[in-house]
């Protein structure tokens, strides 16, 4: 008895291990089948497991949906900021693509013009609506003088009139004081393109006998020394020959959209001293 009392615990432990090993060894060949003990335990537990599992899901939903809302709000704010920033980048990208397209067209025009040119950006317009002038961001420091031609990718814009060191005022071809010697491209009829109200021009001094039709392209004649020959000015939109008079009335729509002009080329040729 003394021996049993002394070694009871190690003995029980040993027996337990042996029993466990026995159960284990007996179950190894049938390890894929549930024995009676397992089946009994699972049968007892299954009614409990299902609601507890549902409760767990509910708690998880509550945690994710409500308790973690603080993080969600923060994340939402961050994502909104990301969207804003990405939208800004998309807009900048689109703007860069459009600017690139415009500048490419301007470069094409630069290749046509033989004289040296300098690119400029429109930075302002006339303060009144009675005159048609623009302000560009280049001046005498870039070699610009009064009386030089201003062109864009679509054609003639006007000529320089008041030059300061860093800015230049451009007299648009639609201003009443503007006059450009021109030719009808098809029939070679000549005249002077003068500015008219509502962003239009007229071809003056074209005699009644001259062949001018609606849709004809008007180009510079090269006379006068400011504009080189053949630059597009616009398109004839209306021709009127009265019963009397020497000249016909010809309206021209400028080739350049002057109200949406952003970049121009200054032809560094000619000009007044």
């Amino acid at each position, binding site marked *: 008895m003394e021996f049993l009392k002394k070694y009871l615990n190690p003995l029980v432990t040993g027996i337990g291990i042996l029993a466990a090993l026995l159960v284990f060894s007996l179950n190894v060949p049938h390890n894929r089948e549930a024995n009676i003990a397992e089946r009994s335990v699972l049968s007892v537990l299954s009614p409990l497991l299902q609601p507890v599992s549902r409760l767990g899901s509910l708690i998880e939903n509550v945690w994710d949906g409500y308790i973690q809302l603080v993080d969600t709000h923060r994340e939402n704010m961050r994502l909104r900021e990301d969207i804003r920033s990405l939208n800004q980048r998309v807009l900048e990208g689109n703007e860069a693509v459009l600017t690139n397209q415009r500048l490419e067209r301007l470069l094409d025009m630069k290749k046509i013009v033989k004289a040296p040119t300098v690119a400029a950006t429109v*930075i*302002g*317009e*006339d*303060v*009144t*609506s*009675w*005159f048609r*002038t623009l*302000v560009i961001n280049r001046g005498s420091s870039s070699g610009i003088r009064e009386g030089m031609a201003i062109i864009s990718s679509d054609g003639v814009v006007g000529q320089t*009139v*008041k030059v300061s060191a860093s800015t230049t005022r451009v*007299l648009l071809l639609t*201003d*009443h*004081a503007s006059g450009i010697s021109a030719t009808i491209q098809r029939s070679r009829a000549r005249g002077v393109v*003068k*500015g*008219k*109200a*509502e962003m239009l021009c007229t071809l003056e001094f074209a005699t009644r006998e001259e062949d001018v039709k609606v849709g004809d392209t008007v180009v510079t004649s090269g006379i006068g020394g400011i504009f080189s020959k053949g630059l597009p000015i616009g398109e004839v939109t209306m021709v009127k020959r009265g019963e009397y008079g020497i000249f016909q009335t010809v309206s021209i729509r400028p080739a350049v959209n002057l109200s949406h002009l952003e970049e121009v080329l200054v032809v560094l040729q000619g000009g007044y001293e």
Partner: protein
Amino acid sequence: MSRRAALLFFCLVLAALVIQVSLFPIFIRPAFKPDLLLVIMVFIALRGSFETGAPLSWLLGMLDDVCSGLYLGLNAATFLITFFVIKSVSDRLYADSAILFVLTVAGVTLAGFTLNLLLMVMFTSSPGIAYSMLSDIFPRLLVNAFIASIVSAFPGFDCQLESP
């Protein structure tokens, strides 16, 4: 005019000029562009003294000319003439009135148009400009009067330009 008022006036004119040259053309059609310098000139004519107002009006007109068209001195002359006319009668009027201010701006717009047209017909070669000016005058008059009415609603409108 105190140094602070002069600085404030300078900043106001500069802001008006920049807005008129760079901002308005983007958002407003040419016929509906208000003439902010003209509105400022009318304010000076109604509230300021003759000694300060006359050179300032001339300078404002010159500024208008620098940023407009080809004829330097055209608006300067017009502004100065209009200033003299307003100044000669302003002492007999309740110059603090907002309605008077709006009406004067409208009247000066019309007078400025007439004087400019007259000067250009007499001294320049601008055939057809009368048509452009005539087609714009009505919207211009309305827009200037509208701007004047906004200015008159500003909190500091009824303050004195110069201390007596």
